[in-house]
């Protein structure tokens, strides 16, 4: 369950081929547990977690876990528009899932327009490569090269060991926050990608000061 106090809410969407591990990644991020058995996602599932940017605001991430199956495509597309960022997920042991990444990326770009979404490229199932259970089909260098070409952050993760899971989400959150600071992103009426929370600047203000501060807060 998400905490009550947060300064911003970002909506992020997880996209990628079926069975690459989107739901497992999200489950680990949300519960800190790995699900041995995972049913295919039906439509779109939701998760929410609040994270703290070091020396920065608290941010509630509303995470939309989409079904990778083709038959759900018409539904998942509806959720792109209100997202500020997308995690492009592939399976390091499945070449095809990596090769489809540009398609997913363009799909997201097209539907999130006119907003420019933040992407991160996340490879999953790293544990299978490390323990020798499966052969690696996508090298780390390839992924890094793709990331450099499109100027996006890349990371390889394992939802089983939990390695780099936190990093993947904090990276995209940081990037979005940077873009808010730089003024590229603004909160907009009718767009749910970024919303402001209710605890603006109130972290270290006591109750008496809070009343005074409120009118000023309302006008911004």
């Amino acid at each position, binding site marked *: *369950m998400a905490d009550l106090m947060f300064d911003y809410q970002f909506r992020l969407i997880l996209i990628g081929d079926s069975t690459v591990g989107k739901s497992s990644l999200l489950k680990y991020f949300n519960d800190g547990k790995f699900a041995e058995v995972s049913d295919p996602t039906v*439509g*779109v599932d*939701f998760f929410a977690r609040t994270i703290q940017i070091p020396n920065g605001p608290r941010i509630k991430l509303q995470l939309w876990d989409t079904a990778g199956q083709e038959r759900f495509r018409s539904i998942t597309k509806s959720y792109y528009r209100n997202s500020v960022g997308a995690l492009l997920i592939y399976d390091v042991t499945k070449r095809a899932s990596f090769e489809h990444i540009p398609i997913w990326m363009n799909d997201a770009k097209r539907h999130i327009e006119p907003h420019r979404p933040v992407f991160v490229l996340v490879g999953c199932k790293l544990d299978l490569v490390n323990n020798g259970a499966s052969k690696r089909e996508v090298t780390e260098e390839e992924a890094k090269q793709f990331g450099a070409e499109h100027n996006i952050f890349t990371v390889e993760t394992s939802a089983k060991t939990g390695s780099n899971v936190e990093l993947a989400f904090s990276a995209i959150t940081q990037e979005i926050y940077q873009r808010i600071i730089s003024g590229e992103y603004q909160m907009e009426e009718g767009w749910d990608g970024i919303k402001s929370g*209710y605890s603006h600047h109130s972290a270290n203000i006591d109750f008496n000061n809070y009343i005074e501060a409120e009118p000023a807060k309302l006008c911004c």
Partner: protein
Amino acid sequence: MSDSEVEFESADEGSKSGDGWEIETDFDLPDLEQSIESKPTEIKSSALSSVSDLANIDQYIEHKHKNTKSSNQTNTFDAIPTLQSRLDKLTIDSDDTNSKSHTLKEDITADNALKETNCQSSVWGGWSSGWSMNSLISTASAITNHVSQGLTSVIGAPSPEELASMSSNKVTLLNDKLTEESSESILDTNYFLSNVSQITKIVENTGSKLINGGLDTLESVGKKTLEVLQEGDPGLRKKRALFFQNSEKINLSQVLQEAKEKSEIESKQNNQIVENKDYAYLLDSFQGLIHLESLELLSKQCQMKLQTVLLSYSGTQLTDIQDTLEQIKGLCYLVCDDDEKLMNDEEFKKCLITTINKISVDVKIDKILKVSSSIDNKSNGEFDTEDCIHDEAISALAELTAAAMELYYKLGEMIMIDTQNHQVFVKAENLSHLNEAVCCRIRSVANKYACLLTQFDADDTSNNISDIYLESSNSSSYIQDAAQLLLPILQLSVI
């Protein structure tokens, strides 16, 4: 004879058109029939005569008024006493035909009958005395005033007045001739009839010019209107969407969101950040709002698609489809027979399994069943204080409602992508059963906690109990509203 009668009927129509826009009504005047007989090629022309006919009324009234007052013309006014009063009234009316068109209309109808009996012998003698082209033109101008003012400035179409004055010379000529002749032989019936047809011919000719101008004008109006409407909105899509969207419907998720925000602000002001037991806040934290919001998104999408598809149908095909849609709607709105019906966890489980399987086999009901049975366990446990029971009850209701929202959302998704659409009616029916089951379960949860509270007898007890029942009925209505969001999704699947 019939000519003049028809003319007066049409004048009736004309006199109604106080605001000038009624020009359109002139097209389905009785004149049409008459002119089809005499001049099939000039159907249009006689229809327009109504414009000038309004002038005729003026004339007719004035002239009649004179006649009745004139002692020289003593011919055959059988009905003079009754007519007198009526005509007095008419004279007043005729000063302002536009504003008093209603009274005028009645009187004219009565006068039409009178005229049939009287005009033969009396009327035509005074034809010239009251006839003036100024009056004709001014009346025509009054009728079309609004239209032409707008049109000449916007479209540049010639005003009907101009058209009328162009042909007025002809009519004046005829009038002079007519006056001479009529004063000589007042009682010659045949002569009058031929004159009448002459007049109608002239009027027809005049009218044909007017109507041609009028039709051009109307065409321009139409074109311009469509242009303006389509500006920046090709295919009128936005406007269609505007018309079709359900304006009464407020967004449930928005209402709940606002309630939640309000409670957050309040709790903050009371410095009770940690312990918030407000219903709307709990509903959101159980992911009820986000699922409801998503369901709204899907529902709206389907609604829009539905309207677009319906626009492409017409005639019987359209009515057939609309019937089917209504049928589905009827099934979804099945009324609950028993408002007091309760359901324990076991009954709820059974009911859900049977209904869900008939709607979509892919949707998992584990979550809502888990919620339901955990509520059962908790409510059988021990509670320290009365407030604990209250808070637990609100939380249970919020959690169950949230689970129902998620279930409906998942159902919506599955219905949307389901390709086996022949079972839509079964689905709709079971949906309404499912809905009923969830509401019964909500009611029974509220009942259970309320019963626990009745053991206490504190000041707050009745407040707490009514609070629980309030949130229970809120939950039920949210759930029902959410279920209705599935309707367009179901409907779209049959098309």
